[in-house]
């Protein structure tokens, strides 16, 4: 697909969907609220949310952490869509997809133009018009001081990072955040893969376990104390 065609497609999708406040399920917000307190609460400057493989729920957790920072601590939050392989953060919430980081890094848009409001006190920066140019944009992002500049007017930056396995820039991007939160899908991701993913990080991440459930009936759980 040519960049022009991608642009037209994104413009069409953006126009069709008005921005809407993120609707996050109560249990997810409760878990994010508890996690936010342990990760620094109102003192947290930036948080990168990642996972071992895709589909573990990092995007919803990143959004949940943003909502918690806004609701619980009244802070201004900027969500950064950095998962170039599956940029669906803005799509899920109907935010404008363009212009984004790609355009900002290439000098085709200003910081003010790439920040799209998502809800009260929460804004989002997408990967931009050309997802195929995303990896290049991310490398430029790592080289430049754009991340510091873009978050100047916000209390906290929350990045939806690529999954660690299968992404070269994922571990590098994680290093640019004050704290890293690793989302692990319970009962799905093999332990070996998780260990492989955490080994690629420079610092130990905190872990949020997603989709915890016990298949045992209640009476057995009562007996076993589970």
């Amino acid at each position, binding site marked *: 697909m040519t960049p022009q065609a991608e642009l037209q497609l994104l413009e069409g999708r953006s126009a069709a969907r008005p921005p809407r406040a993120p609707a996050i399920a109560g249990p997810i917000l409760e878990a994010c609220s508890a996690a936010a307190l342990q990760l620094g609460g109102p003192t947290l400057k930036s948080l990168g949310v990642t996972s071992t493989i895709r589909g573990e729920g990092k995007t919803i957790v990143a959004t949940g952490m943003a909502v918690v920072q806004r609701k619980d601590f009244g802070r201004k939050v900027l969500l950064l869509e950095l998962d170039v392989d599956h940029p669906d953060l803005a799509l899920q919430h109907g935010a404008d997809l363009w212009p984004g980081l790609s355009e900002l890094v290439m000098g085709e848009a200003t910081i003010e133009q790439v920040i799209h409001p998502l809800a009260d006190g929460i804004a989002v920066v997408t990967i931009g018009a050309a997802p195929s140019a995303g990896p290049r944009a991310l490398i430029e992002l790592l080289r430049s001081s754009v991340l510091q500049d873009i978050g100047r007017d916000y209390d906290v930056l929350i990045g939806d990072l690529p999954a660690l396995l299968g992404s070269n820039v994922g571990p590098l991007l994680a290093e640019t955040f004050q704290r890293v939160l690793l989302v692990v899908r319970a009962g799905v991701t093999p332990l070996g893969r998780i260990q492989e993913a*955490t080994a690629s990080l420079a610092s130990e991440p905190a872990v949020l*376990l*997603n989709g*915890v459930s016990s298949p045992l009936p209640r009476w057995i759980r009562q007996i076993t104390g*589970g």
Partner: protein
Amino acid sequence: MVRYLETFYRHRLLVLTPVLLAVVFGVALVLLRPSLYQSSAKIWLNGPAMESGVPASSSQTQAEQQAAVIREFLSTRAFTAEVGVRSGLADYLSQASPQSGPLSGLRSLVGASGWSAALGASHNRLDDAVYDVLNRNVKVTADGPQIVAISFDAPSARVAQSTLRGLIDQYTDEVLKVRRAQSQAVVDFFQQQVTEQAKTLAAADARVAQYAATLRSSKTAATDLTLVALQRADDLARQRYEGLLLELDQAKLDQSAQTQAGGTGIRLIDPPNLPAAHLGRTSALLRTGLASLAAGLLIMLFSLLALTAADTSLHNPDDVRRALGLRLVGAIPRLRQANP
């Protein structure tokens, strides 16, 4: 333990399927088997009928030894083929129509009695079919120190009776054949000994007569030491000859006794009966059902062990701390709608 329970509840269908299949297979095994009639007979042993090839332990009764002998015979194709011919079992198998229809394959597969596969056997594999049927359906047990019980299951009451009768007759014939061969060998041995001894005796007689003729009077004959020695040797040869004659007579007597009724040392106390009703299936169902259940549970156990060992994913907060050693900051319960 909790991990195994969790695996069980997580993969309920997978781990319970082998149990269900095993029980269904076991029940089908019994239900799809043709109705069988059982004919039984008892034989009494009043002497050592035949030595078993297996060394008999001192604690084995005569009946147990003979039961082992019959089982050995059943393991030979020559014996089973003879039984098949003389009892009419071979004819029955060749003339019966082979089972057809959608269940015939399953019947053959699960038919533990071997009848499903044997019915309608072609000529070139008739002996194999007879061998298979006899080995699967004949039961030989020692029913006391001197009584052997034999039974045979067949789809027809008459076939069950005639086959069992044929089997016992063939066994009796085999015993007779062996004993006759043994007694003939004894007779032959003594016959040869008697012939040789007769020659020795005739030579001794001739020497005495020849020497006596050289003496002048009977008075000197009475005191002649050589003659006395020759006469003593002649007497000894005669005694030996007469002893051998007695042994030969005894051997011939034994041989003729083999041909008389009861000469085999085997007496048929209960002849093969004509069963009036086919065998009940309740006990077979119960037995097979329990065995299948046990087999299924064993498979289930191995499946559980394998599934638990193969699952290295993290399921609860404790797993994160134990396996990763990382700080857990929260856990989101599983929601009905999948997280994007």
